[in-house]
């Protein structure tokens, strides 16, 4: 009980305390408690330099990527080991995606896109470990990733094409009276990109984890005879493994699509 009370004060310190949950009625496990950012050492205000559970799990994601890619390809065997074949398959998969979707001249950006994919994939997968923390469920994390992509794409577009990059907004194949209207729509959709790009990833991951915790709350209420919630948790967990991969894939493939627009802005 005292632990729960302590957790609640943590939540209030992090600004999530208004959910109004507690012992009186409702679920015992609040589905949103898993997303509370806490300092690793002691408790106190969270500043930008404070090591929190979010920074810990981001660092673990990077370590996981390094273990997979650097350790996996260290042997460079002709007949690859399991880790080496996973690393090689991932490399080939992303390289082919960049080449197919964004074009051959986008291969300059392949290291960046590979980094994005591996980091998001590992953060998603590590977040699926029970009691861990999912960094990609926070819009603060995904918004930085999406903003970096947005700024990169915009700068690349203007550097490569100059003012011709603005042709992206001017649909020359449309009838002339429609073009100004379409230009406004294209402009809005261009600036909504980082919003949808980041919220798609964070929303999918957060929603899935919250669903798992809601079923866990049902299991807590039912007690020992909670067969249905446990089956449901297992099923949702399987779905979440799939969603983790697909959302990392979707994030990277949309990066490739935006990059293609920047490199070849003509409609």
């Amino acid at each position, binding site marked *: 009980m005292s632990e729960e009370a302590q957790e609640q004060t943590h939540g209030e310190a992090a600004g*999530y305390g208004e959910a109004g949950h507690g012992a009186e*009625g409702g679920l015992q496990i609040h589905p949103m408690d898993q997303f509370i950012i806490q300092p690793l050492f002691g408790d106190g205000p969270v500043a930008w330099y404070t090591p929190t559970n979010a920074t810990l799990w981001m660092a673990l994601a990077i370590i996981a990527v390094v273990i997979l890619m650097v350790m996996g390809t260290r042997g460079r065997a002709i007949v690859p080991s399991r880790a080496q074949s996973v690393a090689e398959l991932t490399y080939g998969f992303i390289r082919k995606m960049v080449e197919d979707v964004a074009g051959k001249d986008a291969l300059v950006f392949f290291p960046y896109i590979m980094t994005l994919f591996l980091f998001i994939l590992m953060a998603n997968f590590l977040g699926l470990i029970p009691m861990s923390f999912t960094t990609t469920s926070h819009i603060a994390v995904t918004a930085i990733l999406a903003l970096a992509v947005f700024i990169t794409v915009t700068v690349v577009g203007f550097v490569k094409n100059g003012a011709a990059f603005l042709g992206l907004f001017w649909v020359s194949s449309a009838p002339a009276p429609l073009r100004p209207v379409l230009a406004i729509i294209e402009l809005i959709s261009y600036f909504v990109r980082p919003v949808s790009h980041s919220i798609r990833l964070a*929303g999918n991951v957060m*929603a899935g984890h919250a669903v798992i915790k809601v079923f866990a709350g049902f299991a807590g209420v039912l007690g020992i005879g909670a067969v249905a919630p446990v089956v449901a948790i297992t099923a949702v967990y399987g779905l979440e493994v799939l969603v983790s991969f697909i959302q990392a*894939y979707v994030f990277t*493939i949309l990066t490739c699509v935006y990059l293609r627009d920047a490199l070849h802005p003509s409609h």
Partner: protein
Amino acid sequence: MEGDLAHIGAGLAAIGSGAAAIGVGHVAGNFLSGALRNPSAAAGQTATLFIGIAFAEALGIFAFLVALLLMFAV
């Protein structure tokens, strides 16, 4: 339960998830019907499938976000 209008709004916003489900099902169903007619062309279009699903899903996620904001931020 001290339910107020924000909770009703959050419930209404959750309808958006159903609308997104219709959109995603439409994309995937049409992909499948096309892929069964010409299976040899299907493999090259899976990337397009995922992009289409992602765009359809994004708007449902926006509805979910509105529900979350109404539940926890308002």
